[in-house]
């Protein structure tokens, strides 16, 4: 007769290798179906001339060669890169200042924290439409500018102003989100450090630069990494404000807008759009690595 204790151990041992996989299975399945498969599929499609309704043939690197000669690709790359340059510094610094502002526990501060966070939860379509109404040639902002004698400004008709307006919306919408991240980081900065600096005669600006910034530096790196990836992949803000054509003569088209425009519809060039997506992926990963490398260099 078998020892019951031994038999249980054997049973457990027999099932042990399977159990972790079973627990991980739902996550693996979802990742496989919605992340891995589309990713690999995009890589494969980028090497074909596949269209929406016509299965493609292997064309090697022809799509990548073509995009090097495509003016719209360079326009998209320029705009997506400018978006990173314009938006990331603002999203690293402004939410930190905002967090410092609402960090103090004074009566009514919860209202301001909620108010600053509201744009984050608002639908991007609603936000986009509101800003389009505000910045329209006959909108509120232009009426005010005209009233003070500046005259109407073509926020939605000038190529560069349009891109700047879209950046402003991205920053406005993202402030609250990154503010929350900074609030959590600021809560971990020891009060004693500030007190010691104050005793040594450091003013508020000096304390901010020598105490606060070093203490939240890793959070700033995180915010820089997150916001640069999001900025490079911008779509909604520019699409809503510049229209499906990507602004006047398509000059405000971003790379992701180009992917959407090229690869969708009944005559969509899925192969070429996939090649564009691969470029977006490579640049995004490069951006992340650049931010992390900069951080490591500063640390060392």
């Amino acid at each position, binding site marked *: 007769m078998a020892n019951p204790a031994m038999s249980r151990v054997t049973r457990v041992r027999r099932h042990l290798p399977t159990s972790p996989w079973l627990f991980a299975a739902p996550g693996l399945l979802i990742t496989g179906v919605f992340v891995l498969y589309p990713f690999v*599929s995009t890589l494969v499609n980028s090497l074909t001339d596949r269209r*929406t309704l016509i299965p493609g043939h292997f064309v090697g690197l022809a799509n990548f060669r073509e995009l090097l000669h495509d003016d719209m690709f360079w326009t998209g790359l320029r705009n997506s890169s400018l978006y990173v340059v314009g938006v990331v510094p603002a999203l690293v610094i402004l939410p930190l200042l905002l967090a410092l502002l609402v960090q103090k526990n004074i009566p009514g501060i919860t209202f301001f924290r909620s108010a600053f966070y509201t744009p984050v939860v608002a639908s991007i379509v609603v936000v986009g439409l509101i800003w389009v109404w505000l910045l329209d040639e*006959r909108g509120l902002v232009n009426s005010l500018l005209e009233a003070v004698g500046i005259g109407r400004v073509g926020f939605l008709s000038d190529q560069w102003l*349009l891109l700047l307006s879209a950046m402003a919306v991205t920053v406005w919408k993202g402030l609250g989100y990154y503010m929350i991240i900074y609030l959590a980081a600021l809560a971990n900065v020891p009060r004693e450090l500030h007190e010691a600096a104050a005793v040594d005669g450091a003013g508020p600006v000096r304390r901010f630069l020598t105490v606060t910034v070093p203490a939240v530096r890793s959070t700033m790196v995180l915010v820089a990494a997150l916001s640069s990836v999001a900025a490079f992949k911008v779509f909604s803000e520019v699409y809503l404000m510049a229209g499906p054509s990507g602004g006047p003569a398509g000059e405000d088209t971003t790379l992701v807008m180009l992917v959407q425009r*090229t690869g969708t519809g*009944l*005559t969509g060039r899925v192969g070429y759009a996939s090649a564009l997506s691969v470029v977006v992926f490579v640049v995004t990963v490069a951006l992340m690595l650049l931010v992390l490398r900069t951080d490591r260099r500063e640390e060392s």
Partner: protein
Amino acid sequence: MHLTRRTFAAVAAAALLLPLSACGSGDDDGGSTDASGKVEGDITFQTWNLRANFKDYFEGVIAGFEKKYPGTHVKWIDQPAEGYADKLSADAAGGTLPDVVNVSPDLLAPLAKAGLALDLDKAAGKYKSEYLQGAWTGHQVPGMSGTYAFPWYLNTGPLFYNKSLFEKAGLNPDQPPKTYDELFADALRMAKQSGGKVATLANVPTVEDFGRYGVPLMNDQGTGFAFNDPKGVRLLTKYKELFDAKALDTQALTATPESSGKKFLTEAVAMNPGSALDLGNFKKNAPNLYKNIGITDQITSTGHVNMYVMGVMVNSRTEHTPAAVAFAHYVTDAENQMSFAKKVAIFPSTAGSLDDPYFTKEDGTDETRVRIAAAKSLKNAVNYTPVLFSEQMKTALRNEVARALQGKESPEAALDNAVKACDRLLQQQG
């Protein structure tokens, strides 16, 4: 059960290789092209943004069909106007295209080229004589033999104008421009009189504008675009003049149909194309505009207005070809088209229907006057949208037009570039 490394590697390899299987596969697992069998079975019917206003009408049509053909069941799906092409492409690529689908000729062309639209010359050629010849041939695709959709309703689309703004500019509100030359003269005057505050147009010229100006859109063989001829350059040069004088709205370069509709509603723009459904919108949201609304025909210098054609195609892979063909024909037959036309300002594509007293006899009302005028202009209307003109081509033309209007390129260079880009896209379509 052990999940070995080998098993894991096999699963990973399958995940990596599965997408490759999509390459080069194009097996036609379609249904029969024979529509002569018994009309029975469940079919799906997809319309394009029609449920909101015509639910009762379509339910009546479906009930009538199911009664006429016992053993059939029609499931009706309606898709919103926005993103209709994307919805069709997703369904077509995923193999879930409905059995009977509402399409326009430019949407039909890629579906037919992919072998997804049933050739009705073969499957339903006996019905051909029931329709206007131009409407039937309007669903043929250059480079392919056959006809791929039943003609459905036709429209020319009215052009609305603001009589009050015309009057303020010293223009006769009862004599709106008819030709492009008249339009350009009136628009420049309107801009001058209003100090650039009121534009006449909110949109840059489209391929249909080039067509109505008398510009040849494609070469005789239908193998390449030709709108960069001297007449096309003249049209774009004139639009540049309008843009510089603010007779064309300053935000026209990024305008969408929605944004230009809003400009017209707020009386920032004096003329805007639309549909009969817009009248209700004006009445509700801009009563002041509604009081001063003028309705006229599209601007044309060829004597022919642009005709918008709707069709109903049958999915070539339907499992119930006889039922799908019978239903597509039923929806588009003379009786049902006439009944639909009495509910909304559209016009039947069936032979002889436009001679019905409903489209010829005055009863003293403005509505009837507009309907009769539209039916009359429809008799020699032309579908100026080239069947093979894809969304990507529209964007290419629009971007080059915008460059010319901004002065970044000459109109000539802009049109040359647009034609080059459209020709390249045409070749890539195969």
